[in-house]
């Protein structure tokens, strides 16, 4: 085979790659939503000194933001079966990404809670809302609004981050790209098309999320 670029065979396999892209979006979306819930719990535990969970929550965040996600998932991937827990690659990666992202999202949410005007707390307190009501009705909706761009940004980071699921055998976009490269021997062509797909995917995702902003 010559050194010229041959895109035809790769383009024929586009539906196969797009299926992988769907898997990537699915993985990112599920991990993001679960991480948002967990991250919220972490953020509140870190902000409300009365919780008693503060050191544990801070420790969790410091650990997960200072070590690579890849190694975290490897650790899980190797260690969980020893504890008798056998998860599929998809679920393992989903779990790993959720834990990792929850630490980062809690940082964003903590910043947002810190930026909530004190008058919101005071007004909510004088209106008689309890802690849970105050957070669910006032603080969290406000934080989700002001932190929407940062959360949107992190979702895109997660979407791109799903590519490392391929290392664990998940057939998302990058995983399918590897397979395609290995059977066509057209690594560069496959990779460049994959890169274009990721760019398009992340542009679409951030556009879509921005247009959904007014719903928050």
């Amino acid at each position, binding site marked *: 085979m010559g050194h010229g670029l041959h895109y035809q065979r790769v383009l024929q396999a586009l539906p196969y790659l797009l299926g992988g892209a769907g898997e990537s979006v699915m993985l990112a979306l599920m991990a993001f939503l679960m991480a948002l819930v967990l991250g919220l719990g972490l953020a509140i535990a870190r902000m409300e000194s009365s919780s008693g969970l503060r050191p544990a929550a801070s420790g969790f965040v410091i650990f997960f933001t200072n070590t690579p996600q890849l190694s975290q998932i490897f*650790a899980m991937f190797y260690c969980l079966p020893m504890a008798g827990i056998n998860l599929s690659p998809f679920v393992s990666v989903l779990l790993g990404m959720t834990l990792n992202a929850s630490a980062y999202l809690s940082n964003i949410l903590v910043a947002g809670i810190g930026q909530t005007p004190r008058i919101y707390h005071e007004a909510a307190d004088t209106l008689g809302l309890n802690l849970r009501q105050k957070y669910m009705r006032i603080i969290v909706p406000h934080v989700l609004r002001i932190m929407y761009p940062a959360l949107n940004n992190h979702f895109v980071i997660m979407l791109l981050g799903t590519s490392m699921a391929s290392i664990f055998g998940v057939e998302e976009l*990058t995983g399918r790209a590897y397979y395609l490269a290995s059977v066509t021997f057209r690594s560069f062509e496959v990779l460049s098309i994959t890169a274009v797909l990721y760019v398009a995917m992340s542009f679409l995702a951030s556009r879509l999320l921005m247009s959904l902003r007014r719903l928050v």
Partner: protein
Amino acid sequence: MTQPFTSYDVLLLWHAFLTTFYLSLCGGALAIAGGTGMGLICFSRARLFAPLRLVVGGGCTVVRRIPFIIVLYLVFYVSGMSGLDISAVTVSILAIGLIGSTYITEIVQGGLRAVGSDKIEVARTMNMGSAAILRHVILPQSLPLIVPPVLGYLVLFIKDTALASQIGVIELNQAGIILTNRGLPTFHVFFTILILYFVISFPLTVMIQKMEKKLVIS
């Protein structure tokens, strides 16, 4: 706890630790250099740079949306196809530098732009030249906005170096896999690996937090 590692294993870990450190340092330095240069180009208003601004601006937005692992492979294959004989370590550093500089370009440009145009106009009326304005008006106000997030990205790049394992660089993550495959207790191996990453990353995180606190106070 029993010591599960032989001296050979410890040596492997030590070399892997140094490699991770080296990748982070060189990749980070390349990213800062590239990002600062491109950020300045994007910020400048010189007519001469207009086409370059377009290329750099567009390139950054696109490259930032390609996963690191794909960039890594692309650099790997492109260097192979073009006949350049460079090591996997160099490929990793180039890939980190490339992705990193696109993020830093954005921060540098944003930080420079955050200085109000009224202040720049005041400096112009005082007959200050472009270089003097940059040095005395823009940088003192924008550096505090630029440095902490840039360091924040460096922390992210340290963790991205783990992906270099995929092109055969024996850095910490790869060392973990090698030791695990050799039958060493998985939990001990990966616990050690994560701690070693933490040792590189955490001091930087603490430094950033201190800087940010200082900024809030001042």
